[in-house]
Each structure stands twice: as C-alpha cells, then as structure tokens.
C-alpha cells in the first residue's frame, strides 16, 4: 500500500506556515493570495479556495486582488516552501522510511508492512492527516495499491480517500483529466474530443488512442485506469533542522522576538521528534537591520551556539535557554530575521538507578546553569569561565585551573583515599600586592591591608619557576609560609616574591 499526502494551494500553505498558530487559523478563514515576480509587476501565483471563490484568478496583478477588499497578500518565498516541503517529508517519515518527494507540496510513501503499527489503511490515513495538521498543513490523503493511483486520488479528492486494490478504475473514473497533468496540446485534443474525465479516457480504444496521441496518450490512459506500476524514488532524510522567520518590519522588543522564537523551536523539536531524534547543539542567528547599525564595530549578525551536555528535544527547555541569553544581550539594531538550527543527535537513553545518588535533573540543570550565568556572567576578564566544574591543569604554575562544563554524567570513581584532616589554602585572587621587610634572609614583617603584621615564624624559601622560554608567560617566585600576629590571633599566610617583577604578594591564607 502507498499513501500520498498532498497540500492544496501549497505556496499559500507554505506562506501561512510561517505565521503563529492562532493567526494561521484565522488567516485560513480569509482569502489569501501569494504573489511573485519582479517588484514592479507582482502577479498572483497561488490563491486559497476563499480567494478563488471571491473571484481572484491566477495571473492577476497584485493591484487586482487588493481591490477586492480584505485579501491577505503574501510574497512567495522559496525558503518557506523548502521548509514546508521538508516538514512534509518529516511528517511522512514518522510513518515510513521510504518517502518520495513527488512534487512541491506532495509526498508519496510506502505503507507496506505498517498495518500492525498504524492499523488498517483508513486508520493510518487518519493518523497521517492528524500528523500533517500538527505540522500546520491541511492535507488530502489517499491510500492505494500503487503510487500513481494514490497521487491522483490525493490530488482529485478532498480529505481522506482509501482505494482498495482492483477498484482503481472505478474510483478514479469521476476525476477530471487535468489531474493527470497532461501536456497542454494533449489536454486541448482531449477537450476537443469531449474527453473530460478519467472514465471517459479509460473507455477509449487503446489502438486508436495510440494512433492519434502516441505513447503519451497510452500512458495517460493507463494512469487513468490506475494500473500503472512505478518504483518509488525515496529521498535521503535531510539532517538540516533549520527554521527561520523574516519579519516584515524589523522588531525591537524582546516579546515579539521570543514569540516567534518559541514557535520556531516548537517546529524544530516537532521535526526532531518525528525522526526520533534530539539535539545536542542549538544555533540561533539573528540578522539585524543593517541600515541602523551605527558603528562599524557592531556586527550585523548576532549568533549564539549552545552546546548541550546531553541531547534534548524539549522545546520548552530550549526556549528558556535561549530566552535567558537574549534577556542578557543587547542588540545594536532591530532584528529583521531569526534563524534557529538544531544539530541532530540520538536521544539520551538513561535508566534511573534505585541506589544512585540524587543528582540535578539533566534537562533542568542546563536552565539552572544558564540562570546562574545570567547572574554572575559567563567568563572573567582573563577568559576563564565563571560557572563550571574545576579541573586542575597539569602545570607547576600555582593556581592553574580551568572550568569545564558541569554535567551529571557518571564520573570516574575516585580511587584515591581521602587524606584525614588536612588544612587548605584560601586564595586571594588576584594575589594581594604587599611589602615585606626581610631581615637575615627571612621575612620579618608583612603589610596586610593597612596593617603591618609581625612575622612570628617563617618557613621557606620554596623556589619555583616555569615558562622561561616565553617572555610573556614566564614566572619565577620565592614562596614563604609565614605565621603573622594579627589582632584576631595567629594567621598562617603564604607570601611570595615575584622574582621577575621584584614584587611581594600575599597569595592566600591557610584556613
């Protein structure tokens, strides 16, 4: 069995797909036309049923539908039509792996062997219609024994059509011949003969038809009978999960931007879910209105990439992540275009352990981290992250560390025993500049803040150096552990002499 899904007035539906859902439903109740061509001579290339009933015909200039009153006019967009076609393919792929992109707005796919999954043909067709509806399309669905019959039935009959094997000719008989899309010459000849339906074409004697119209005529007759077999040409599934929206007027407010962003993310996640995928990298691109960018330093494109530690297919989580970032960003100009791209990945398969320690919910953790970053910032002046999991670098240079992304993936168990009761250093970051009075090679007093503190005991010097081959990153120091007499008691500090800068610093306190 083969199913065909076709969307009538595809350019109109593709144009409306870019609208928010509630607005799209409203627009479907109004006459909508799509115009295309040079800016000076835009012509109607597609119109919905309401518009056609109102008297609008294909080929009219843009001014003519405008004179009809309340007619919604949209400019044709190849990008929207491509996105809509991809969405149709994704919709079909949730029912079958063998999907053919038959024509713009039409996909045919193989339903053989899916009865146990989706039930009888009519049930499967209803599910397909429901899925197409979720993707934002009003589609005609037909199920038949061969792709050609399914295609013509979907094009000719509204709603759901199921044609059992052997009844093709009888069911297709009432369809007009232009559903076969013959060449204009053949259509004129058939018209002059008074042949207007599939049934009339099927009743013609094949030899006479061949003598007058050649092989093309015979081919059309076979199609009209519904007996022609052809091989489906499946398309490779695309890994491009991109959705975009171009604003008619560039937007300045975050509300307008997030409203559209939410919808785009919803569409991307729906497409991912239809392929049983998730994303571990989300890219957001905002094109700014170039004319209003004042300085050359400002970029005209704002781009943000989120690398997620685990695949996520929840549109709400992704939306909150993006919103938190946009809230803390400022743009030099209004936004004219918004693009969302998700890099597909296999969804996470994790089994909760009954005895596993409590851990933050992985999806929620990303939002928590984004919220924290919005409070403390992403990275300090040196470029080291402000939020993350610390990792000590393999270097002799003191205080060498980096922060990597914090995740709740099971870490390698630490096999080393925990040393009992050790005291640790509490750092001053950056180290405090100080002056040290040295007597007999040992520190005698240290200036801490505004206090000159007497050194009770000192241990050192502990010398260290590194990166001597690189003048910019070379370091050499002489460390002392000192006990200082403070007003609050004895304080054990680490001071060091930077031998390159000839300057004393307080590195930290043993606390």
């Amino acid at each position: 069995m083969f199913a065909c899904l076709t969307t009538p007035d595809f350019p109109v539906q593709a144009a409306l797909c870019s609208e928010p859902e509630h607005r799209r439903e409203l627009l479907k109740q109004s006459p909508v036309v799509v115009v295309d061509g040079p800016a000076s001579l835009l012509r109607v290339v597609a119109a919905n049923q309401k518009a056609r009933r109102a008297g609008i015909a294909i080929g009219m200039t843009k001014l003519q539908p405008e004179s009809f009153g309340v007619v919604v006019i949209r400019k044709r967009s190849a990008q929207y039509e491509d996105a809509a076609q991809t969405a149709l393919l994704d919709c079909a792929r949730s029912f079958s792996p063998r999907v053919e992109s038959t024509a713009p707005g039409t996909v045919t796919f193989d339903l053989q062997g899916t009865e146990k999954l989706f039930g009888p043909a009519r049930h499967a067709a209803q599910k397909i219609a429901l899925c197409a509806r979720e993707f934002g399309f009003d589609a005609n669905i037909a199920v038949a024994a061969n792709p050609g019959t399914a295609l013509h039935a979907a094009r000719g009959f509204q709603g759901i059509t199921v044609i059992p094997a052997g009844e093709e000719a009888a069911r297709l008989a009432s369809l007009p011949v232009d559903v076969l899309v013959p060449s204009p010459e053949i259509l004129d000849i058939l018209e002059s003969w008074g042949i207007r339906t599939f049934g009339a074409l099927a009743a013609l004697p094949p030899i006479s038809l061949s003598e007058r119209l050649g092989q093309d005529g015979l081919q059309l007759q076979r199609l009209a009978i519904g007996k022609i077999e052809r091989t489906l040409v499946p398309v490779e599934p695309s890994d491009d999960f991109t959705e975009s929206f171009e604003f008619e007027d560039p937007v300045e407010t975050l509300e307008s931007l997030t409203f559209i962003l939410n919808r785009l993310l919803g569409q991307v996640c729906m497409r991912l879910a239809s392929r049983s995928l998730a994303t571990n990298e989300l890219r957001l691109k905002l094109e700014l209105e170039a004319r209003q960018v004042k300085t050359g330093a400002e970029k005209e494109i704002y781009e943000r990439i989120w690398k997620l530690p685990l695949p996520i297919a929840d549109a709400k989580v992704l939306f909150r992540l993006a919103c938190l970032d946009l809230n803390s960003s400022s743009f030099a100009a209004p936004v004219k275009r918004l693009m969302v791209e998700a890099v597909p990945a296999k969804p996470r398969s994790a089994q909760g352990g009954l005895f596993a320690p409590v851990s933050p919910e992985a999806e929620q953790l990303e939002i928590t981290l984004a919220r924290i970053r919005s409070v403390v910032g992403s990275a300090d002046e040196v470029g080291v992250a402000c939020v993350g999991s610390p990792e000590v670098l393999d270097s002799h240079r003191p205080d060498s560390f980096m922060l990597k992304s914090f995740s709740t993936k099971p870490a390698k168990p630490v096999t080393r025993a925990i040393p009992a009761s050790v005291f640790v250093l509490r750092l001053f970051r950056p180290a405090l500049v100080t002056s040290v009075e040295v007597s007999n090679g040992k520190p005698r007093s240290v200036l801490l803040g505004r206090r000159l503190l007497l050194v009770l005991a000192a241990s050192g010097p502990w010398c260290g150096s590194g990166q001597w081959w690189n003048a910019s990153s070379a370091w050499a120091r002489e460390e002392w552990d000192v006990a200082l007499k403070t007003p609050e008691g004895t304080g054990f500090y680490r001071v060091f002499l930077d031998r390159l800068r000839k300057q004393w610093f307080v590195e930290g306190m043993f606390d």
Partner: protein
Amino acid sequence: MNSAVLLRSQIESRIPSAFAVYRRPQHKFIPTGISQIDDLGGIPLGALTEICGSQLASSGKTSLFISLLAQAATEREMFCALVDASDAFDPTSAEAAGVALSRLLWVRCGKTRQKLPPLEQAFKVADILVQSGGFGLIAVDLGGIPERVVRKVPLASWFRFSRVVEKQPTALVFIGQQPHATSCAGLVLNLKNRPGIWPGNLLTNLCVEAEVVRALDRKPAGSVRPVFSLKSQWA
C-alpha cells in the same frame, strides 16, 4: 461541649491539618571527615549550617568545609555546589584533600562587570541552586565579604533559605566570619585556632577549637568544644 471545643471540632472536620502541630523532619547528617565534629553528628541535611571563623587569623573554617566537600562529593558521590562570593576556592588544595572536582559546581561571583555586587550575586545563585534541587551539598562562601556588608542581609532571606532547604536532602552551608542566620540555622560552628603551634621549620599543624554555638539536636549547644588538629599536605 463548650463552644471552643465545638468550633474546633467543626474546623478540624473540614480542615484536618488546621490544628496539627508542625514537626520538623528528622535530620540526616553528612560526616565531615573530622572525627571530633562527626561525634556531634556532622552536618545536617535539610538544614542551614553556618561555619564561622576569623577573616584575618587562620581558623580552619575552609579546611573543615573542604573536608566536608570531600566526604560528600567523593565518599557519598553527591553532586555539590560552591557559590564562591570572593573567588577564594583553591582547586589544587581541594583536589589534594580528596575532593572529586568533577562532582563540584563552582560558581565564581564578582568576576565580571555585572550590576549586582558579589554578595547579592551569591545569594541569588544560592537561591537558584536551592530551588533547582538535586545537589547534596550547597555551600556559600562569604568568608571574604566584609562583615558590615553581610550583616545587612535581611533575616527574611535566611528564613526563606532554611524553609526551602528543609524539605530537601541538601545540606546548605554558609561559610563566614560571624553567624547571621540566628534561629534559622540548624547548626552553627565557630572555629578558632589555638596559638603557638609551629613545630620545627615547616608549617605542618593547625590546631583548631570548634564551638558549637547552635545545634537543633544538642542542648545546651555551647557545652561542647571539640578540639582537632589539621595537618598540612606535606606533613
């Protein structure tokens, strides 16, 4: 039956919990790895703990916290968070003390040009972490923040923290110079070092005296003053 009893029975029939006595949940504890403190029970889960010590003198408050962190992150495999208001955490020392750094979320406050001062950043982040849940230990290090600034934190903030953390299996630990949470804290430890411990040429020992200023499960709290010794990593 007098009118008060009648009224009470009528209310209880409609709202059974109206006159129920609120009982605090029984606390579980995380050991600190220092036997003298663990003998007192350790650090309570589902409660706010304050570890206090001097800013100028070495008190052992950071060492006690790191030891607790090692027990929670490494021994108990909990996910821990450290909100570092003054960016004083030393990962090298922590790793040497046995902390599994991969299970630690370190938030460095006051490092970027944000509008909020570090203390407010720290409290906001702590609030986010406590609300998100899933962390076994959340520590807020206010040790480097001047005392006069921390004192201005309204009591309502401490109260909110204590009520939120009460229903979670999380130990919320504040490290500072002085206790501020008053009755909102489940445990308050005040640490100070004992002077004159510097044997030989190397700094190897730090002798600390802990005073239990407040403890929910131990009364009178101040009756116990455990003394313990901390060793250096090279001792």
